[in-house]
């Protein structure tokens, strides 16, 4: 990734593209949400009516987009590939799942504390955050980088999957947490709740997008990009590289946790398969397809791949894994900068002529 070698003029135009991209992305998100709400409000007989199920599906996509954003923040701008981000997503999800389970029934021990929404919301960000802090501190301090880091994150999520599969964990074993009834006193199965969760997810994506954008253009973000491109050099310039890595890693894990917490009430279940290494690595291909190191690319990739997944697993279940596998190969070999890279290239072509 030799971004540093780009010519200044091109660099400036790219910068402009990105800031314009930020505006366009924000606008698209807002307009998209509004459009879905309006279409949903149409009578059910209307040809353009968007059903509750579709709204819930789109809400689920929003949580995936949030997760993709979290992965892109550290992979795209810091160069650390986490193959275990599903673990943070799942931890947030389990915190939310426990809160939902605690409605109506008293949970034993510390789990009972999660019956209060503020504490549960705190757990949603703290559980993944603390894990990321401990894990990242150990890893970055001893300068575990590159592929080694990827492998141990995969081992981490694998170990957590085994742990959460045990009934002794009190997390529902391999069935996970399910049969939720209400959230904040409202019934979960109602249409209003579906819309509210959809909106909450969309707003969360928008806020996270702005947050990531702010981080990326800040001094911290610039040091992060420098670390990605030449870690030793940044270290010799006097920056504490491990602090930079750690702070972004923790923020990313917290975003993943929020995504998980929004995901659980919309899907109605959280089980250890979310910890499976396959899910975490699937997230990486969303980002890779959309375009690593561009925030809107991550959002786009998550949307496109998951839409394809929904369509294909319904129509041709056998074809889905072929396609997903093929995407990994084609994107890494032919589209190293993803769809966003293609868009940026076309933009430059237009600018040059």
């Amino acid at each position, binding site marked *: 990734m030799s971004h540093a070698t780009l010519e200044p003029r091109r660099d400036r135009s790219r910068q402009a593209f990105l800031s314009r991209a930020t505006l366009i992305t924000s606008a698209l998100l807002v307009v998209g949400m509004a459009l879905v709400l309006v279409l949903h409000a149409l009578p059910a007989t209307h040809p353009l009516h968007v059903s509750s199920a579709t709204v819930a599906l789109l809400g689920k996509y929003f949580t995936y987009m949030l997760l993709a954003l979290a992965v892109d923040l550290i992979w795209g701008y810091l160069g650390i*590939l986490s193959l275990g981000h599903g673990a943070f997503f799942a931890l947030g999800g389990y915190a939310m799942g426990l809160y939902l389970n605690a409605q109506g029934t008293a949970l034993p021990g510390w789990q009972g504390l999660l019956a209060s929404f503020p504490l549960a919301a705190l757990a949603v960000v703290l559980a993944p955050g603390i894990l990321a802090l401990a894990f990242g501190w*150990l*890893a970055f*301090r*001893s*300068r*575990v980088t*590159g*592929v*080694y880091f*990827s*492998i*141990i994150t*995969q*081992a*981490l999520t*694998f*170990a957590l999957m*085994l*742990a959460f*599969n*045990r009934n002794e964990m009190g997390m529902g074993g391999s069935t996970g947490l399910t049969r939720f009834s209400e959230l904040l006193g409202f019934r979960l199965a109602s249409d209003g709740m579906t819309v509210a969760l959809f909106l909450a997810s969309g707003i969360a994506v928008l806020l996270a997008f702005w947050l990531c954008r702010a981080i990326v253009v800040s001094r911290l973000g610039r040091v992060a990009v420098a670390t990605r491109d030449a870690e030793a050099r940044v270290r010799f310039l006097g920056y504490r590289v491990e602090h930079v890595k750690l702070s972004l890693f923790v923020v990313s894990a917290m975003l993943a946790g929020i995504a998980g917490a929004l995901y659980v009430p919309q899907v109605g279940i959280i089980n250890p398969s979310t910890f499976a*290494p*396959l899910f975490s*690595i699937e997230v*990486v*291909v969303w980002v*890779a397809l959309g375009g690593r190191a561009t925030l809107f690319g991550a959002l786009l990739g998550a949307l496109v791949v998951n839409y394809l997944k929904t369509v294909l697993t319904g129509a041709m279940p*056998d074809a889905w*894994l*072929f396609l*997903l*596998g*093929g*995407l*990994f*190969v084609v*994107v*890494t*070999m032919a589209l*190293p900068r993803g769809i966003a890279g293609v868009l940026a290239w076309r933009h430059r072509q237009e600018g040059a002529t």
Partner: protein
Amino acid sequence: MMTNSHAGGRHCARRLRHSLLCGLLLLCAAWATTASAAVSEPQARALLQALDTRSFEAKGEAAQAIADSQASQKTRWLQALLDGRLGKERRGEQFYIVTDDSGREWPLIDAITFAEAGSGSRRTVDIFKINNDLRTQLQGMIASLSLAEGDERSRLAAADRLIGDVNADNVESVRASREREESATVRDRLDIALALYRVQQGDATALKTLKGNLDTRVRNTLTTVAAGDGELASQAQQVLDGIESKRAWYDRAQTLFFGLSAGSILVLAAIGLAITFGVMGVINMAHGELIMLGAYTTWLIQQALPGQPGLALVLAIPGGFLVAGAFGVLIERTVIRFLKGRPLETLLATFGLSLILQQLVRTLFSPLNRRVASPEWLQGAWQINDALSLTLNRLGVLGFCLLVFAALWALMRYTRLGLEVRAVTQNRAMARAMGVRAARVDMLTFGLGAGVAGLAGVALSQLTNVGPNLGQGYIVDSFLVVVFGGVGNLWGTLVAGMSLGVINQVLQPWVGAVLAKIIVLVGVILFIQKRPQGIFAPKGRVS
């Protein structure tokens, strides 16, 4: 191949000898029944007639009389009585043995001449009934009878049955057989049986014979004796403690064996990765699927050669190597070659390949797991003593693992390819300048690593069922083993795999299988943080 055909030949010879022996025995038996009926027919009839009574006590005396008689048929009679197959004609004086009592009509033979005697049923034949006391008594009689006759094997089995079953009724005859017995192993076994009886009778001196005996029956009897009080009980407790500590040692040996066999699977799965990742620096996430391909090759060859699992398995060793190796070369040529120096991209692309391979197998064969049969010589266990038995398939995998490791190590150390691989790894540009075709070396090395993964699949097919997800479970473990052992170090991989296997087995009884695995995973993660170069860090400067 050669060793196997040799073993097969030996097997055939043994079978031939066995059938000869059987024929001889039959001849002897025929001679015995016709020529030397040591009692006359009326005497035999009288002996059997004594069984025809309602009192079990009288029956017991009659059985004892049979056992003490000279009748050549007595073992068979007692056995038939024990099995509930000896009976008397309801309206007549004939005695019969039922040869098959599963149907309504029973085929019969005459109890005295053993000649076929038509058929009978519940209505025409009265079976002599026995109770539990009589059953125990009969078992003892039969055991001491077979001690007196038969070949060494059946005498040994009879002596073995007697342990814990010696009682006041048969102790004299057992003692007599002990004096007559010529085989030392049978004598030892009888000594133990007698000593156990003496201990039960309160003889503390007999405890000496039982020291360090691992038989469960000895242990159970001693536990009862030690539960009492007095000098005998405390001495018995001492012997028991000795036995327990000996058992504990054998248990540890057993755990070690299980650990090593689990470790050998890890090593087999990881050793191919140690070459592609450790030596070449290529991350191959499809490694697990190459293992799976090796396992499926075994299954396919076995389908093509029904009824010959042994031959199929032997053929699968080169077969699995070639199939997985060919896929490896294909992957290297089409994907990995273009991603040189971009490890994260290689990781993602090969992960995609792994998904494709999995789905390919799922579509071509089926998502269901397939069972691969084990050949006869890998079934069962090698029973070393009562506390230690090694299952042959695990032993086989352990041996196979060491063999593969040795072959691979020799290949890297002594062959031209090994030399070139090491040269390219150390300094690619310089190696090329010296005329090494680096691209070809890359391809062959990757093919070699993939082929070894195929071999791992062949071995795995003997331990678990074969399915499309077979390889997935090994990928995380394999990478950890390679990293734990020190990248680029074959010995490190061996030591790391074996020690992880043993640690896992040692932890298992305390915390359960899943938690043991988690602890090992977390332990390795922490270890890598502490020592990123693994157990065996490369010495000196490696460019």
